[in-house]
């Protein structure tokens, strides 16, 4: 085997590999542009975890679309229903709790025509939906319960959400537990502002009086003790702009996972 043949082969191989590599990185850049255009890039696509978070989010949106979370039968409900974490112990929450949440208000603001407040009784009087779905925690445990509440999409329609809106940011009475969802989930019929569970009112351990249920994502997206919804077209200005407190701590913003 002559040296010149080897050199040519090596050079050709090297050229081929460089072209492949260049082609690969160009297609990755093109894919990122297209993904951004079609709303396939999550707000926490920053720093070293951006590729993983984006691939999770984009692949689910492309492969699962609007598919509903699995619903179960009532005899599959977990008993007793597992309540994780401790309820808020601050004076304000205790006062609400002792008064039966009569003064509790859910405020809806931002890109809506008629911002306003809803009491728990007002929400209960609206058409509600009941569904038996699973709560799966990022820690690994899960339970099934029946959730009753007002579909978020109905509430957004009622307050006149502007078409430019892209996210709903939601807040708990626990100041550090806030999160947001895109319109795929906000307008999804199974996303509920929950006021009832397993046929009764929502227990304190499960987020009384109001909890957002996002059944297609892990439990931490289903914020308890819900006080405020902000409709927006940009997450800049909400914390670090990554869409949730969890995302700022390094958890994925999109937790359909």
């Amino acid at each position, binding site marked *: 085997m002559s040296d010149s043949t080897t050199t040519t082969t090596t050079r050709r191989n090297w050229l081929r590999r460089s072209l492949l590599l260049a082609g690969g990185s160009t297609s990755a850049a093109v894919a990122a542009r297209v993904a951004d255009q079609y709303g396939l890039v999550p707000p926490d696509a920053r720093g070293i975890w951006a590729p993983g978070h984006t691939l999770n989010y984009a692949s689910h949106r492309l492969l699962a679309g609007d598919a*509903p979370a699995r619903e179960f039968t009532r005899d599959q409900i977990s008993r007793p229903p597992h309540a994780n974490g401790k309820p808020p112990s601050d004076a304000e929450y205790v006062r609400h709790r002792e008064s039966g949440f009569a003064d509790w208000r859910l405020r809806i603001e931002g890109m809506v025509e008629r911002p306003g407040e809803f009491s728990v009784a007002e929400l209960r009087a609206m058409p509600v939906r009941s569904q038996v779905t699973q709560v799966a925690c990022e820690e690994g445990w899960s339970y099934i319960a029946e959730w009753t509440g007002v579909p978020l999409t109905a509430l957004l329609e009622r307050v006149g959400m502007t078409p430019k809106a892209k996210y709903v940011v939601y807040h708990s009475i626990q100041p550090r537990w806030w999160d947001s969802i895109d319109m795929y989930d906000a307008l999804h019929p199974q996303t509920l502002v929950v006021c009832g569970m397993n046929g009764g009112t929502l227990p304190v351990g499960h987020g009384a009086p109001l909890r957002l249920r996002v059944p297609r994502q892990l439990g931490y997206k289903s914020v308890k003790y819900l006080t405020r919804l902000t409709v927006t077209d940009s997450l800049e200005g909400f914390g670090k702009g990554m869409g949730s407190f969890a995302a700022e701590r390094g958890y*994925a913003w999109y937790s359909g996972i």
Partner: protein
Amino acid sequence: MAETTVCAPGAGAQATEARTGATRVANAAARHSATVRVTHWITSLCFLAMLVTGVEILISHPRFYWGETGNVQMKPWFTLPIPASRGSVNSGYNFVLKDQNSWSRSLHFQAGWLLVFAAISYGLHGLQSGHFRRNLLPAAGDLTWRRMTAALRDKPRWEYNAVQRLTYLAVVFGLFPLMIWTGLAMAPGFVAGYPWVAGVWGGQQSARTIHFAVTALLLIFVFGHVAMVYRTGFSKRTRAMITGHEAGRSER
């Protein structure tokens, strides 16, 4: 050419030499192709990352269930006798480990994606180059009990014996796909679109338990694999997986 045949994978390479001449022999002399080498190390790195972060996620709830649901108020199928990173789990230890789930979860998924891309490259290469057919598919005649036990007693050879081939096939086409499958089965967003992905296992907790069991099997494979590399010459074999060649020098 004598040097080349020393490093050629057994009789197969001699046949290649006869067929295609000198240029091809230099390539055939490589024990592992470039794609196999690169994807091997990417896979190793990703496996290590996923193992460490998987254990980190696991310790937040070291209890396993069968069926759809499982939580501390339910009876587990089995519990690992290790401390937990959550106070809500009664682990039997009077201390709670530090919670590192956030970056662990992010790294777990990111390494998972890298592994999937490596697996796709490896799979396409394996089909296109004949690597699966040539190096991993056992000859039908070698699949008798007598020949396989004999292969286990024999000294290691250049070519993989039938037991090694079956093991690699099981890992590549069985355990790794099963890991991805049971991982997806735990994702509520994915299962919404494809409920059967969790349903075939009897529920998401079953999938989680299988995910753990397959990790144990993969770990046994890794120990066996490294032990055999060690036994047949650690530096020689490792060099072959880095440079492609068994000997320290290039064949060219």
